[in-house]
């Protein structure tokens, strides 16, 4: 990696295709994370709090995208998103297409990285004392008000951590993405293509660039969530004192 020189990195960063692929990667992962967070967070709450038939099976199912080959996940997703499917055709009627489109890339990234959010959020909700939710119910809050005023704020640190991990894992996805959309190219697909077509010398600078940008984003997001970090809060309290 360190064989890449600054001029090489600069030159790669000036390449329009590279810039677009990196932007697409960031945007698609962010979009997928936010979109699937909407049903994902309530689902995590249900898994943490409610008893229902096959609950353990569903919890196991949540981890499935992590353990199966991601190319297989991509093929499964292809069946769900293609225009031949009920969902895909329905969405096509609404003007939303997935195959070979950024929306499909976002879905592929989110699908394989969703377990990171679901597991972190489920653990976060499970760690909220049930008594606090009961106290809120007794104070006249409906279950949905309890969720938004008690459970969600108290589990927020775990949820945020899960969102960051989901976003980061989504950015690095290759297997599922390449099956849903070879074009437009995400950075991982572009790396693979450059490596195949031009060899290590040409692929290396773009790899370094992608790693650097991912690193910067990851650190930035972690810094943004610093306020919720108990260790840094303790440190701040100490400094205040």
């Amino acid at each position, binding site marked *: 990696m360190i064989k890449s020189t600054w001029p090489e990195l600069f030159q790669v960063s000036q390449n329009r295709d590279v810039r677009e692929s990196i932007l697409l990667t960031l945007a698609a992962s962010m979009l997928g994370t936010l979109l699937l967070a909407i049903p994902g967070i309530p689902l995590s709450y249900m898994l943490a709090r409610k008893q229902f038939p096959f609950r353990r099976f569903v919890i196991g199912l949540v981890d499935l995208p992590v353990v199966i080959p991601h190319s297989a996940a991509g093929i499964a997703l292809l069946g769900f998103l293609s225009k031949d499917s009920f969902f895909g055709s329905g969405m096509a009627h609404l003007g939303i297409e997935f195959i070979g489109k950024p929306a499909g890339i976002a879905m592929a990234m989110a699908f394989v990285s969703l377990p990171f959010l679901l597991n972190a959020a489920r653990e976060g909700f499970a760690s909220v004392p049930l008594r606090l939710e009961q*106290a809120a119910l007794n104070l*006249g809050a409906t279950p949905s008000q309890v969720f938004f005023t008690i459970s969600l704020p108290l589990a927020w640190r775990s949820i945020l951590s899960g969102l960051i991990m989901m976003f980061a894992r989504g950015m690095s996805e290759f297997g599922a993405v390449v099956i849903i959309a070879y074009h437009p190219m995400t950075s991982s697909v572009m790396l693979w293509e450059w490596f195949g077509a031009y060899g290590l010398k040409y692929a290396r600078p773009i790899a370094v660039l992608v790693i650097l940008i991912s690193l910067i984003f990851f650190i930035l997001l972690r810094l943004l969530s610093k306020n919720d970090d108990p260790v840094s809060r303790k440190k701040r309290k100490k400094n205040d004192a």
Partner: protein
Amino acid sequence: MLELRNINYETGNFQLHNISFRVEDGEYFVLLGPSGAGKSVLLELIAGLTFCDSGNIIFKGKDYTDAPAWKRPFGLVFQDLSLFPHMNVYDNIAYSLKRLKLDKNSISQSVEELSIELEIQHLLYRKPDSLSGGEQQRVALARTLALKPSVLLLDEPLSAVDVSLQHELRALLRKINRNGVSIIHVTHSFEEALAMAQRVSIIEKGTIIHTGTAHEVFERPKSSFIANLSGHRNFFKVRVSREPDSDLLRAEVSPGNPIYCYGNPLLTEGFVLINHENIVLSLDKPDLSTRNNFHGVITDLHPSRHGFEITIDAGILLHAQLTAESVQKFSLEQGSKIWACFKASSVTLID
């Protein structure tokens, strides 16, 4: 009036069996029982945090048995208080008011009034984890009172505070009750029940065994738990039979160990209570008119507030009190043989 009618509830090995009682408007009602008796579960049933298998919870003629928790007019203060850790004291108190969608000024005014009443106005912008136990208790009370509950349910409200604060909080709870709020106060403490209750119910192993005024319940206990709590050490469950040609009753604690007493001749089972002050002790067989004369061995002898408390094994375990002078005079020690005598008329037979 709040009325519980034949409440039955089962979970795991625990059972509430046929619980019935009434709490009048403005009454201070105490539910007293040992740990694990079902007191807290009963409060959760009233609050709607769990639901009974059968029976009814009626308040002012309306059936709340199946009503969800947020629609019940009962405010519960949990034993662990359960203050919301991510909100300051102000937001904790205002929580229920915000659910009612009151305007900011009304909320602020209500919080201020409550904070003055409970003397916590200086704590409003602090987080719960920075408060002492007594302060947290007051905040929890204020938070529950904000909703103006018709019945206040208190789960062991004084257990987490020290003795001096207990007195303060008792005064506060009486004040809240005087303002017209009915209170159901759950405790395992005899002193607390005696100090607070207008009426008290005794709950043991998921069943209510006695309800009445504190005087009625503690003077004529119906369980060894209550007898022990109220200082009655000589309390026995007995089988009762009549002595032929006599008004005397023969109350057998165990076969061959009868205690003679007077009482309802129709009783076949019950409890006897012997006040330790009525037990006369003697080293030699006494020449007394007492009908109950037990010869036994001292199994325990230890100093107490009024001298010495001794335990005599005479087939049944009898507890008596002696002055320090008497213990010294008779050279009493563990293993000494002694007579314990008391009149049949000094024995209380309870059905």
